[in-house]
C-alpha cells in the first residue's frame, strides 16, 4: 500500500528534476511514517525499509535514464511492477518454503503474519499438520490467527505466551514472521519472539523466519535497548475473576479483576523485541531460503 502511495506521488509530481522528485518522495515517506507512529501500534520498520528501497530503486533508474520525463515514465511502469512484486513476494515465500513443514509435524507460531499464513495454507494443501499458537498479549494477535487457521481447516491449539517452555517438547518446528530483518541477520518482531527463539534453541528445535525481502532494514542492533521501539499501554486483568462474573463489565464501566496500579509502578511495554541471528536457523524469503549470514550479503547488494 505504501508503494502505491509513493507511486501516486511520482504520477502527480510537479517537480521537473530528479532532486525535486526525491524530496517529494522523502517528504511523503516521512508523513506516512509519522502517521504510522501515531495511529498504529505496528512497528515502523517494514514501512521505513520499504520506502527506502523504493527510493533507491528510483535513484538507480535515474542513473540509467538521465532524461527526467523518460525516467518518470520508466519509474511509473517499473513501480507498478515493483508493487506487484512485493505483494507476490508472499506467494513466492509460500511456494519455495512450504516443504519445510512436513507431514504430521507440530508447528509453533507467534503473532499474526500474512507470510506465515500464506506458507501454512500452502503446506496444508498437501499435508496434515498441527499448529500451536501463542496467545499474543496484549493484542490477542495469536487468538485472531488461531481463528484464521481453524477456519482454513488446520488443527489449532492456543496457549498462553508463558506456556512456550511447557509446550516446546511437543513441537517440531517454530515458524514466525518478522516486522524487519536487520543487517546482521537477526529479526525484529512482536514482543515474545526473542524468548521463543531462546526456548527453541535450548530444545534444539529449528527456528524459521518467513519474511519478504522488502523488510530487510538498514539497522544493526547490538542489543534490545539499541532499537527504536514504541511503548504501548497495558492493562492487567485477573481473568479468572472477570470470568467468574460471566464476563460482565461492572458499574461505572470498571472491569472486574482489573488491577489498579499506583502511579509509581513503571510499566515497560515495547511492541517488538530483537532476536539475534544466532537463534535463527533459516530465513524464508522471496529471494530464496537464506542463512542469517547471507542476509548481510543480500543487503549489501540491495542497498548498493
Amino acid at each position: 500500500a505504501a508503494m502505491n502511495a509513493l507511486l501516486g506521488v511520482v504520477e502527480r509530481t510537479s517537480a521537473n528534476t530528479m532532486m525535486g522528485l526525491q524530496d517529494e518522495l522523502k517528504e511523503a515517506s516521512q508523513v506516512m511514517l509519522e502517521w504510522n507512529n501515531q495511529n498504529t501500534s505496528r512497528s515502523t520498520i517494514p514501512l521505513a525499509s520499504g520506502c527506502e528501497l523504493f527510493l533507491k530503486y528510483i535513484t538507480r533508474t535515474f542513473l540509467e535514464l538521465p532524461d527526467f520525463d523518460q525516467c518518470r515514465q520508466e519509474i511509473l511502469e517499473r513501480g507498478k511492477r515493483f508493487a506487484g512484486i512485493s505483494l507476490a513476494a508472499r506467494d513466492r515465500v509460500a511456494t519455495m518454503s512450504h516443504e519445510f513443514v512436513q507431514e504430521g509435524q507440530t508447528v509453533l507460531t507467534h503473532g499474526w503474519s500474512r507470510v506465515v499464513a500464506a506458507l501454512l495454507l500452502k503446506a496444508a494443501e498437501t499435508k496434515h499438520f498441527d499448529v500451536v499458537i501463542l496467545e499474543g498479549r496484549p493484542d490477542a494477535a495469536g487468538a485472531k490467527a488461531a481463528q484464521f487457521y481453524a477456519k482454513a481447516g488446520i488443527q489449532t491449539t492456543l496457549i498462553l505466551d508463558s506456556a512456550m517452555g511447557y509446550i516446546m517438547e511437543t513441537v517440531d518446528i517454530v515458524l514466525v514472521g518478522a516486522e524487519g530483518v536487520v543487517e546482521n541477520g537477526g529479526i525484529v518482531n512482536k514482543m515474545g519472539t526473542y524468548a521463543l527463539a531462546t526456548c527453541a534453541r535450548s530444545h534444539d528445535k529449528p527456528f524459521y523466519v518467513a519474511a519478504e525481502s522488502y523488510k530487510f532494514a538498514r539497522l544493526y542492533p547490538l542489543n534490545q535497548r539499541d532499537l527504536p521501539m514504541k511503548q504501548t499501554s497495558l492493562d492487567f486483568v485477573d481473568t479468572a475473576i472477570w470470568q467468574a462474573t460471566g464476563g460482565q463489565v461492572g458499574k461505572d464501566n470498571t472491569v472486574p479483576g482489573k488491577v489498579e496500579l499506583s502511579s509509581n509502578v513503571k510499566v515497560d511495554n515495547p511492541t517488538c523485541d530483537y532476536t539475534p541471528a544466532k537463534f535463527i536457523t533459516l530465513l524464508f524469503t522471496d529471494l530464496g531460503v537464506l542463512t542469517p549470514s547471507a542476509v548481510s550479503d543480500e543487503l549489501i547488494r540491495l542497498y548498493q
Partner: protein
Amino acid sequence: GTQPKGSSSSGKPEPSEKRRSEETGISQKQVDDSKQFSLSYRDPSKYPDEFESVVLGGAEAAMKLHPAVLKLGYRYATGEVREENARCRAMMEAFVQVVEDFQPAKAGSDARNQFVQDVLKPSFTYWTEKCRPHSMSGMGNAFSFLKSAVATLDRDMELAEVKTVLKETIQAYVRERIDFADMAIAKNAAEKIVDGDVILTYGDSEAVRVLLQETIATTSKKFRVIVVDSRPLLEGKTLLKELRRANVECTYILLNALSFVMNQVTKVFLGAAALMSDGSVVSRVGTACVALAAKAKGVPVLVCGETYKISNRVYLESITSNEMGNPQDVLQGELGPNLRVINLLYDLTPSEFVSGIVTEMGILPATSVAVLLREMNPQDTDSAFAS
C-alpha cells in the same frame, strides 16, 4: 631441527645468529625455534653493524635502495613506527619520494616494469625480510594497489606526468582509505553511542581514537571511557592523553584488572591490524582477551577497521605469521639456557566474539567481511558460476 627460515642456504647459522646465541646464552635450538615466527626480533643496539649498513651504505645500499626506503626500514626495525595505519602511511610517504627521484636506467625500455621490478619490489622485500614483516594485511594491500596503479598507467604518458599522477594516486589512497575512512567509521560508530555509555577500549587504535574524538567534538553525548592497557608497550597511554585533553571522564587499568571493570561496561570498541576473510580479527596482543571477557558478560564488541585492512587469507591460530618484539622488554637481564621469553605483538580474535565490524561502508557482521572483499574486487571473483 628443520631449516630455519631466512638463514643462509648452507643451513649453518649466520654469524649474527651465532653471536646472538653466544651473547644472550640462548641455545642455538632456541634461536632456530624462534624462527618459527616470521621474524625474530633484531635489536639495532645489539647488532650495530647490521643496522649501520642499513643507513650508511653497505649491502643494502649496494642494492640501490632509495635512502628514504632505508631510513624507513630502520624506523620499522626499531619499532618507532608500529601502529598499523602509521606503518602504511610511512610506507606510502617513502614511495612518494621514491617516485619523485626515479630515473629509468635504460632509455626506451618499459619504465613502468622497471620501476616495479627494480625499485618497488626490492624495497618492499627489504622491509619485510630485513626490517619487519609487513603488517598483517594493510601494507600488503596498499602495496598491491600501488603495483596495479603503476601497471595501469597510460603507456603514452611523459615521465614527468607519470610521476605526478602516481604521486597523486598514492596520496589519494592514504587520504581515502585511511583518513576519510576513519571519519566515516567515526560517523557510523557514533550512532551506537548513547548517553550514559561506559565504553571500554584497548591499547591505542587510530580508528577508535578518531571515533571518540569526533563523537566528543560533534555531538553532546555524555559517556565515559575505560582505557585498558598492557605491558610492555603501554600504548593506551597515548589514547588516554588525547581523551584527557578532550575532558572525557576516563578510567585507566591494566589488562589483568579487566574482569573487575567489565560489569560496568556497556560497549567495547577495539581496533584492528587486519580483518581476515572468515571474520576473525588480528589486532594488538591482548585484544582477544578483552573480546572474550566482553562476550562472557554479554557486552557488544565493535571492531573498527578500515577496508584496506581486509585480507583474503584466514589464520587458524595466533602463532603463524605473528611478529615478535624485543624479549628484553618483557624480561631483562641474562636469561640462561632454559628460559625462552616470547614477546608477541599480535593475536587473533575469533569472529564469535565480534558483534560487528565498523568500516567506512557501515557496520557489518564479522562473517560479511568476505562479501565486502568480493564487492570491492569484482575482478578477482573467479567463479565457475559467474554469469
